[in-house]
């Protein structure tokens, strides 16, 4: 059973629709209480860093997440801004992140991006696998995933980088540290690759 955290940000509907079609059990946690005892956690995210952190803090989700993820080692998958808030901080905002994976979220350096367009990094891009994880089982790396962002997860521990993507520079598109996973792209909008990734997370 996957618990999707509904804290007011991100694509809950598209994600739950995919799990429904796959016949994989899920529930939607609208309150922090419903996060307690989860087997697996899904942290969606669309929008800005501080706005996302504020929602998590003000609605009381941060506390229970700390408990479940850090203490009880419940697997968690953060997507897009849901991935970025797994880090310590972001150049996009002032609030500290959840600090589950050692990293600083940075803005892309436009001077490294040749030609036009510059930012945001938007569209389908390939990923390169850096270490084996069952999260990427059966994924076509050349088709890759849909990205939409101007900030990237600057991983401080190279061993946490599972896959990278090129956009002017190489950045971490998939990160993992024990039970904590994050992907920069939108699996819920990435056709069969995305469906496979969501299935893999359910099967972890």
């Amino acid at each position: 059973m996957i618990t999707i955290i509904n804290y007011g940000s991100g694509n809950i509907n598209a994600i739950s629709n995919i799990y429904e079609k796959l016949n994989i059990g899920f529930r939607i946690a609208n309150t922090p209480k419903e996060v307690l005892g989860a087997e697996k956690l899904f942290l969606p995210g669309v929008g800005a860093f501080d706005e996302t952190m504020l929602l998590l803090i003000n609605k009381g989700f941060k506390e229970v997440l700390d408990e479940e993820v850090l203490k009880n080692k419940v697997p968690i998958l953060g997507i897009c801004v849901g991935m970025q808030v797994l880090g310590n901080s972001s150049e996009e905002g002032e609030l500290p992140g959840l600090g589950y994976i050692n990293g600083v979220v940075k803005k892309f350096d436009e001077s490294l991006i040749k030609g036009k367009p510059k930012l945001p990094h938007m569209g389908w891009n390939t990923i390169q696998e850096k270490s084996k994880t069952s999260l990427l089982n059966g994924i076509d790396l050349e088709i890759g995933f849909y990205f939409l962002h101007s900030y990237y997860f600057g991983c401080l521990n190279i061993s946490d980088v599972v896959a990278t993507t090129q956009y002017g520079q190489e950045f971490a598109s998939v990160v993992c540290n024990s039970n904590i996973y994050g992907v920069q792209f939108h699996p819920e909008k990435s056709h069969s690759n995305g469906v496979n990734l969501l299935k893999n997370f359910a099967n972890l």
Partner: protein
Amino acid sequence: MLRSRITPCLLVHRKGLVKTVEFKEPKYVGDPLNAVKIFNEKEVDELIILDIDATIEGRGPDFNFIKNIAIESRMPLCYGGGITTVEQAKKIISLGVEKIAISSAATENPQLLVEIGNAVGVQSVVVVLDVKKKGLFKNYEVFTHNGKRPVGKKLTDIVSTLNNIGVGEIVINSIDEDGKMNGYDFKLFEMIRELTSCPLTILGGASSFENIKEAIKRYKPLGVAAGSIFVFKGKYKAVLINYPDRIARNEIY
């Protein structure tokens, strides 16, 4: 490597899908939800859906409609039509839409773009510029309200304002070429491309897959959007939703 996006652009009129010519003569081409399902199967790069009634009728977006589309869509979605407030933009994003397209409100009140960008992230703010050649010298002019109302500002000034504000994408739509299938207006596209480094999408007039290929060859990576070629087949324009397969696309990205 970041690839170009081949993007069907669907117009919604009286709850059905239509295709226009020069923004007129809407022809019914099918049911929106059914089209989304077909485009899912074809693994389309992304989809633009524009409600062409909302602004004209002076109403806001139809959230129920957007919700149903977003639940079904397994590809990135850009929705436009009737967005005039930050609250509407936030609501649409929360329904599972990646990008929101703004046209009339963007040219009337650029400050709104700043506020929406702050609320949902600049990367999700798309501005659609509907452009038509006007007057003796055939100057490019921007229109709103389905090509009926001139904005009255210079195209170059509008683009530089958008640059200062910062937006996630600009869709450059040629009203003159809409639905004619005579080929894109590359001159118009280049003019705007000179002025900005934000992601661009070309729309209006796509004649064939070859025409899309040409646009990608010239300007990649960009968004190459079209209506007619993805909903009509053959010279008699029989309605048939179609999209190039993965093999054909891989050759041109």
